[in-house]
Structures are given as C-alpha cells and as structure tokens.
C-alpha cells in the first residue's frame, strides 16, 4: 500500500516541481517588472509545494525531498507532460495559459484533498490552498484582461489554449492503482476532478471570449502514460539541466 501512496504523492509533487521550474525560467525576463515579481513568487510557491509533498513521503521513512527532486532516476518521475513543456519562444500568452490551466487543476485537487482520509495529505492541502488563492486571482485576471483586449492578444491566448488543452486534459489521466486510492479515501476519482476542473475554467474562458473544444482522442493518445512513467520528449533536457550541478559531484552537499 505504501507504493500506492508514494505514486500518488509523486504525481502531485512532480507536477509542482516542474511547473515551478518552468515558471522560474521567466525570472528576469517577464513582460514588465511588476509582473516579473508576481510570477517569480508563484514559481517559488509551486516549488515549495513540491518540497512539502515530498516531505510527506520522508515522514513515512521514504526518501528526502532533495533526493526525490535532484537525485532520482528519470524513469521514476510521474509528472504530467503539461509541466514538462518548455517555454518555447517565450510567449507570455503560453506561460499565462499554462499557469491558468494548471492552477485551476491544482485548486480542484487541493480542495478535494482537504477531505482526504490520509490526514497528513489533508492537512497539507489546507495549507497550500492559502497560496493557491493568489495564484488563481492572478491567473484569471490576466486571462480575462488579455482575452478581452486586442485581437493579437486574443488570438495568442486562443492558440495557447488550443496547444495546451490536450496536455492539461491529461493532468487527470487515471492514476495507476486509482481504484485503491479512491477506496482508501485518499483522493476522489480523476474523472470527478476533471469534471470540476472544466466547470472551473469554462466561465473564465467564456468571459475572455475563448473557445474550449475538447481534444480529440488522437491528440490525447500520444500523451498517455505519464503517471506510469512515460516521459515527454522535453523531459530529458529539463532533467539534465535540473540535476547538472548535483551530478557534477555526487558526494557533495550544497
């Protein structure tokens, strides 16, 4: 049963780790100083969430957060492909849309986890929701503002949404051992969370005049298996960069 718990927590933690990593690539390059600062805080928060999730595993005698994040074999990662995607051309529309889709999902997940029968997880979810509130305010205000502004901004957001939606959809791919997870009362079924997520993003997207059309199966097919260890083509480079210093001297403490 401990393996099931570990794989659940890793899927939550790895998402946070990598979204924080990708958001952090914007620090110093944001569209205006004030927003650079705000987004840097969000990146820190997400990275801190990852650390807190891994700590739950440390607390039951498994590895430390640093071991999970920086010294784990790449095949053991359980992140969704959405968070592995690079920032490509540094289009802030894409960054904001990923932030919006991801934080909506995170909020839905955390709200559900508050009721988790695994008490440490429930307690953590209550704490993390405090920071999530700001992320959501930030994300939805930006999407609404840009969506209702110029044609260029609107079309950038729409194409970002089209590009990211299949990836975001797969945040809710069924987890390995999901039956056991649900039966234990640790987390509700992914399909339920997925439904809530759609309900959360739809009104904001409508207000921003953005259209959401569910991804086709052929778009989703290549993205399957992330929670079982199938990594995206972007993961390898990300992992090499993230662990570069640690790998340079495996005995060292930093």
């Amino acid at each position, binding site marked *: 049963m401990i393996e099931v718990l570990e794989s659940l927590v890793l899927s939550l933690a790895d998402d946070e780790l990598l979204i924080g990593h990708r958001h952090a690539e914007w620090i110093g*390059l944001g569209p205006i100083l004030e927003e650079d600062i705000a987004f840097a805080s969000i990146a820190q928060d997400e990275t801190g969430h990852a650390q807190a999730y891994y700590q739950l595993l440390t607390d039951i005698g498994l590895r430390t957060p640093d071991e999970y994040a920086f010294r784990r074999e790449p095949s053991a990662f359980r992140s969704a492909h959405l968070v592995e995607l*690079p920032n490509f051309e540094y289009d802030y529309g894409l960054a904001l849309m990923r932030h919006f889709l991801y934080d909506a999902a995170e909020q839905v997940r955390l709200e559900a986890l508050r009721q988790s029968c695994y008490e440490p997880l429930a307690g953590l979810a209550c704490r993390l929701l405090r920071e999530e509130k700001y992320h959501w305010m930030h994300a939805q205000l930006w999407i609404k503002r840009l969506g209702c502004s110029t044609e260029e901004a609107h079309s950038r957001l729409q194409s970002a949404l089209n590009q990211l939606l299949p990836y975001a959809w797969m945040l809710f791919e069924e987890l390995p051992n999901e039956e056991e997870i649900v039966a234990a009362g640790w987390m509700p079924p992914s399909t339920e969370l997925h439904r809530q997520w759609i309900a959360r993003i739809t009104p904001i997207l409508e207000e921003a005049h953005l259209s959401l059309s569910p991804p086709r199966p052929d778009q989703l097919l290549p993205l399957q298996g992330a929670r079982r260890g199938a990594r995206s083509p972007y993961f390898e480079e990300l992992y090499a960069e993230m662990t570069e210093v640690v790998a340079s001297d495996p005995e060292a403490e930093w």
Partner: protein
Amino acid sequence: MASLDPRIRRAEPELWHIPPLPLEPLGHWQTYEVFILRTRGSHAQHVGSLHAPDAEMALILAKEQYARRSQCVALWVVPTDSILWTSPEDEDLFLPATDKTYREPQGYLHTRERLNKYRDRLKPSAS
C-alpha cells in the same frame, strides 16, 4: 560566444535579431500609489508606487512587490493622478505664528501649581 545561460541558448538565434525599438510613452503603463495596512488597528502607510494597466491589476501586482515579506492585512492602491499635494513652498502653512499651546496638553502644565498655592494660602498661618 555562445551564451552560458541555458534559457538564453533556447531563445537563440532570435535573441540576436531583436531590433532596438524604443519604448513609447506609457509603454510601461501609468502609476499607482500603494498603501499598506500592516496590522488591524494601524494606519495605512504609503510604501511606494508601481506601474499597472488598471486598479485591479495594480492590486494584484502590488501584493507581491510590496507585501511578499512584510506583515500586511490589507492593500490599497490609488491612481497617482488622483492625489493632490500641498506645495513645499506652502510648508509654512503648518507653522503657527502665535502661541497655540492652549490646544495642547503641554499648555496645561501649571494647574497643579495653582492648586498648591491655593492650599498654601488656606493653611492656618503659624503665628
């Protein structure tokens, strides 16, 4: 020389071909003045200004620039151009020309003396 920054390497070669287009006036939006309420029961305090496209965005952005570390229970933003101020040339407005201590507690330091004198007078003389 290739950049040592992996982020920048990913952005190449576009990086080297950005035309030096100057920013236009208001390219970074207008400014808002930011006030912070550090604790319940305290006065709001001016902490600086920031650039934002509208008041709601100003609040969202002020939260991280002005309250990411310091204790804070509420934030206010005000468009800079709605604030009026007194001119430094009018600083003398705030200086009284005559003694105005009658409206301050320090103006009433001798009350006890008066009472003491009265009581001294009432004391039966020692003759």
